[in-house]
C-alpha cells in the first residue's frame, strides 16, 4: 500500500468534486421538477397522459442508466435533423447529455416515490377537505402535498445517494468528474487499490453528509406526529 499515492490521488480526484456536485445538484433539481409533472400526469384522468407517464416510468426503471446516457449522447446524434436544430447546441456537449440523462432517470424514480407518498394518505382526509369546501387546488396545497413530501423524505434521501453513485457513469461519455479522474489515474499508475480508497473516501463522505442532513430534516418535519 502506497500512502503518498493515496494522498496524491485524493487531491487530484478532489478537483473533480465541483463538477460532480454540479451534475448531481442540477439533475436533482430538474429531475424533481419533472417528477411533479410526471406524477400529475400519472394521476390525471386523461388516459393518454396517465398511459404515457406509466410507460415512461416503466421503461426508465426497467433499463440501465448506461442505456439512457448512451441514448442521449450517441442515439440522438444519429439524426441529422437533430444535429441541424437548435437542440444541438445542448446535445453536442457531453456535460448536458449527462445532466439530461440523469434528470430523466431520477425523475422517474422520484415520481414513484411521490406517488407512493400520495397513496399513503387516507381517502377520508380528501373527503373531509372536500366537505369543508376546499377546492381541488386547495386540497392539493394544504392537505396532500405537505403530507406526501413528509412521507417521501426517507425514500428521497436514498434516491439522492443513488444519484451521487449514478453520477459516476457520466465519466463514460468523457466527462472528467471524480470517477473519470480516478479512472485516468488508474490507467497511468496501475494502482487500483490506492485510487479506489481515495475516491471511495470522498463518495462515502458525501453519502454520510446526506444521511446526516436528512436525519435532521426527518426529525424536524415529523414533530407534529
Amino acid at each position, binding site marked *: 500500500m502506497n500512502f503518498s499515492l493515496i494522498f496524491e490521488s485524493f487531491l487530484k480526484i478532489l478537483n473533480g468534486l465541483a463538477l460532480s456536485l454540479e451534475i448531481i445538484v442540477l439533475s436533482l433539481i430538474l429531475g424533481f421538477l419533472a417528477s411533479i409533472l410526471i406524477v400529475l400526469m400519472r394521476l390525471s384522468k386523461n388516459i393518454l397522459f396517465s398511459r404515457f407517464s406509466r410507460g415512461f416510468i*416503466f*421503461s426508465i426503471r*426497467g*433499463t*440501465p*442508466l*448506461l*442505456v439512457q446516457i*448512451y*441514448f442521449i449522447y*450517441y*442515439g*440522438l*446524434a*444519429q*439524426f441529422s435533423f437533430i444535429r441541424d436544430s437548435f437542440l444541438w447546441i445542448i446535445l453536442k456537449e457531453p456535460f448536458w447529455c449527462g445532466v439530461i440523462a440523469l434528470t430523466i432517470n431520477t425523475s422517474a424514480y422520484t415520481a414513484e416515490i411521490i406517488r407512493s407518498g400520495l397513496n399513503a394518505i387516507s381517502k377520508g382526509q380528501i373527503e373531509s377537505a372536500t366537505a369543508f369546501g376546499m377546492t381541488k387546488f386547495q386540497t392539493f396545497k394544504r392537505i396532500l402535498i405537505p403530507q406526501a413530501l413528509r412521507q417521501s423524505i426517507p425514500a428521497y434521501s436514498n434516491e439522492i*445517494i443513488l444519484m*451521487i*453513485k*449514478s*453520477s*459516476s*457513469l457520466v*465519466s*463514460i461519455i468523457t466527462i472528467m468528474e471524480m*470517477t473519470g479522474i*480516478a*479512472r485516468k489515474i*488508474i490507467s497511468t499508475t*496501475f494502482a*487500483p*487499490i490506492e*485510487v*479506489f480508497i481515495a*475516491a*471511495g473516501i470522498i*463518495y*462515502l463522505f458525501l*453519502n454520510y453528509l446526506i444521511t446526516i442532513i436528512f436525519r435532521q430534516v426527518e426529525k424536524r418535519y415529523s414533530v407534529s406526529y
Partner: protein
Amino acid sequence: MELLSFGDTGWGDEMLRACIMTFAVSVCAMSFGIILAIPFVIMKLSNSFILKLIANFFTTVVRGVPELLIIYLFFFGSSAAIMFIARIFGYNGYIEINAFIVGAFCVGIIAAAYSTEVLRGAVLAIPKGQIEASKSFGIKGKRLLFGIMIPQTLRIALPGIGNVWQLALKDTSLISVTGLVEIMRQTHISSGVTRQPFLFLITAAILYLTLTTFSNKIFIFAENKYSKGYV
C-alpha cells in the same frame, strides 16, 4: 429492420447472444452474491463487536461507492494481483483474467452487500416468540434452523431479493467497460459498424425491459405461491 435480421447480414443473432450473456452473468453474479451474503448476515447478527464491524464496513463501502469504481478496482486489481503472483513463479508476461469471471465477481460483490441487508432484515422479522415456542417444544439446533428459521427467512426475503436481482441485472451493463460482450458492449460494436446507434440502443432497451419484466413476473409468482395462507 434488415439490420436486426439473423444470419451474416444482420445483427439479430449477435444481439440475442449478448442478451443471453447478460442473463448468464446476472445469474452467476446473483448466486455468488447470495452465497457470499450468508456469512455476512451471520456476522451482522453475531454478538462479536469485531465481526459486526467487518460486516458493516463491507456493506457500507460497497453500497456507498459507485459500482463503476468497484468494477475498476477488481478489473484492474485482479490482473495486477495475478501477475504479481505469477512473477514470483518467474512468469513476466501480461495476464488478463477472463472478463466474464471478473464481471460476475464484481456484480456478485455488489449483490452480496445488498442481499446481506435484505436477509438480515428477514431474519429479524421472524417473531422471537416462534423461536421460544420451538425451544419449549424441544425443537433446537439444526431442526430449528432448517425447519423454522430458513424457510421463513427465504419467504420474507423474496421481494427484497427480487429487487436485488433487478439491480444486478442492470449493473451488468457496467461491465461492458471491461470488454465482455453483453448487451451494452454488443450495442456499442454494432452501432459503431452500422452507424445506427439509435436503432441498436432501442433494441438494447427492449432486451433489458424484457429481462426485467419477465424476471419480475417470476418473482411475483413465487411470492404469491410462498405467501399462501399468510396474507
